[in-house]
Structures are given as structure tokens and as C-alpha cells.
């Protein structure tokens, strides 16, 4: 990277509720084949925040603390994955806050087992309650401008529209919706959450104006998670720089790059 580009990115931070992050990549902790593999992927990604899930402690066997396997410098973002009602998501968020002493929560209220699409109505209801209780709410939701506005009105610290179904790796399915949200909500922190499959998907999300990308399976299920984590880091930086640079207008026909005059006869 050139000195100018480095200087530009070192000042260009992801902002979440007044907290600045140098990395625009947030990654998950699920589905890795080993703790070592997870840790090397986390290190390679440069991410400063990772998501974790809240579950019942098994009573029939001793369980080591999963959190001990995370790099202690990482910010931990607990999620409410697996919740199908606002009430369960609220209870899960409260438990996470008590255990971790963090006000951050990735709010996720699922509406359907096959698609894992969010239940936007329950998500909004939970967001309203959690914001009142002082949480920094980062909601996963369908890529819908009106819902985004309602979540921001409710006091959410960011909006996290999906690119595609969770774990699908399909990439950004509706780029127009992300562009519209970016244009209509220029001041909102927009993090594309779920559905990214490979580096180009992350770059596309960033080129569309996302402030960050949250992903899990794309890295964890890659043949070499650490290498994919590096690819994602670079893709997000590249996509961000391209967005800031302002791309050329698209045109249907060619426009010669070399002068038309002076060609030998």
C-alpha cells in the first residue's frame, strides 16, 4: 500500500457508538475445526471484535471456558443467535451483559429455521427495549430501508443488513438495497452482516458503501481459514479505498485509453 493510502486508512475508522475501530472486519467464533485454527484466523484477519453466542452451561460435564481461547485484546460482541422472540433475545442480551460486563449486543431475532431470515418486527421490538436499558444495539435485519430507519429511530448504534442468508456464502444478493440505504442514511454506521462467501463479496459490500462487514462461515469453513482471513482483511481495505476513491462512471461502449491520433499508417 502506498504511503498516501496508509495515511488515509489510518485516520479512517469504523465508528460504533463513539468507539473507533481500525479494522472494518468483525468476525465470528463458530464452526472452526480447532481452537488453534480459530486463533490463527483471528490473528490474520486483523479484526478487533469477535462475536460469541450465549448458551446453557452443560451440567453433566465440566466445560472449559470458550472465552479463554480468544486473544484477550479482542472486543467481544455477544449475539442473541437462536432467539425467535423479542423476549428471548432481551433475556439473552441481559445475561450476556451480566457475564461480560459489556453493553454491546448483536441483536438477532430469527423468523424461520430454513432461511434464518430475521423477524424484523420482533427485532424492532427487542431493539426498543434494549436501547432503553442502555445497550449498544447492533441489529441484524433484512436489507430494507424502512426497517433501517425504524431501527435508527429506536436508537440502534448501527444497522446490520444481511447480504444473503446466514452461512450461505452467496454474497451480496441485492446491491441496490445496500446502495439505497447508504445514500439515504449517509450518517448511519452500516455493517453488512451474513452471507459473504469469499473476498470479492466483502469487497463488493464495501464498495457499495458499507462501513464494515461481519462474517463467520466464510472464514471458518474455508479450507485454510487463516489465509481466507487475510484475503478478507485485504478485500475490505481494498473495497473501502475504492469506495472513498469514487469509482468511474459505467458506460456501455468503449472509450479508448490511448490517443486516437498519430497511429502509424
Amino acid at each position, binding site marked *: 500500500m502506498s504511503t498516501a493510502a496508509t495515511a488515509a486508512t489510518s485516520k479512517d475508522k469504523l465508528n460504533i457508538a463513539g468507539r473507533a475501530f481500525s479494522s472494518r472486519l468483525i468476525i465470528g467464533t463458530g464452526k472452526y475445526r480447532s481452537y488453534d485454527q*480459530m486463533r490463527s484466523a483471528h490473528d490474520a484477519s486483523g479484526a478487533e471484535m469477535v462475536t460469541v*453466542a450465549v448458551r*446453557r*452451561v452443560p451440567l453433566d460435564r465440566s466445560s472449559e471456558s*470458550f*472465552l479463554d481461547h480468544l486473544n484477550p485484546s479482542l472486543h467481544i460482541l455477544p449475539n442473541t443467535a437462536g432467539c425467535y422472540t423479542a423476549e428471548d433475545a432481551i433475556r439473552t442480551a441481559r445475561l450476556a451483559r451480566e457475564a461480560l460486563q459489556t453493553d454491546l449486543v448483536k441483536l438477532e431475532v430469527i423468523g424461520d429455521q430454513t432461511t434464518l431470515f430475521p423477524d424484523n418486527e420482533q427485532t424492532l421490538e427487542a431493539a426498543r427495549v434494549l436501547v432503553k436499558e442502555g445497550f449498544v444495539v447492533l441489529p441484524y435485519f433484512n436489507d430494507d430501508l424502512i426497517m433501517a430507519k425504524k431501527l435508527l429511530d429506536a436508537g440502534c448504534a448501527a444497522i446490520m443488513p444481511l447480504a444473503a442468508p446466514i452461512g450461505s456464502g452467496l454474497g451480496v444478493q441485492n446491491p441496490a438495497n445496500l446502495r439505497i440505504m447508504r445514500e439515504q442514511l449517509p450518517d448511519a454506521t452500516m455493517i453488512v452482516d451474513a452471507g459473504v462467501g469469499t473476498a470479492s463479496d466483502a469487497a463488493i459490500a464495501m464498495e457499495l458503501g458499507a462501513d464494515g462487514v461481519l462474517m463467520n462461515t466464510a472464514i471458518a469453513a474455508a479450507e485454510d481459514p487463516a489465509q481466507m482471513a487475510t484475503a478478507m482483511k485485504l478485500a475490505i481495505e481494498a473495497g473501502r479505498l475504492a469506495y472513498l476513491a469514487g469509482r468511474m462512471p459505467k458506460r456501455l461502449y468503449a472509450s479508448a485509453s490511448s490517443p486516437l491520433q498519430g497511429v502509424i499508417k
Partner: protein
Amino acid sequence: MKVYVNGESKDLSGTSSLAELITQLDLPAARIAIELNREVVRRNDWGSTMLQDDDRIEIVHFVGGG
């Protein structure tokens, strides 16, 4: 006294507090959280929170997720 911990019924001898329950279950106390009848009980209150028959307790920790 019978209580339900994470959906499983547990017979406890005599009255016991949430803190005693954690010890009895041999759970690590760090970075877990407890709900008693759907309300979070703050860590500082585990010792003074006495359990009653048919209480429903959820004890959670963290696992990998996205």
C-alpha cells in the same frame, strides 16, 4: 426441594443460595450469568439469593457463534 436448572430437575438438600448451587454443580463461576425465574441475578447477589421449590434457573456461558 426441587428446582429446575437449565431445564433439568435437581433435588437440593435443604435451603441453598444460588452461590451454593454453583458450588454444588461444580461450575466455574467466571464469565457465566444466571437467571432466576426469567430475571437476571447480579453476581453480587448470588450469595444472598435463596432458592425456593420449583424455581427455574438458567445458567449460561459463551460458545462460538457468528
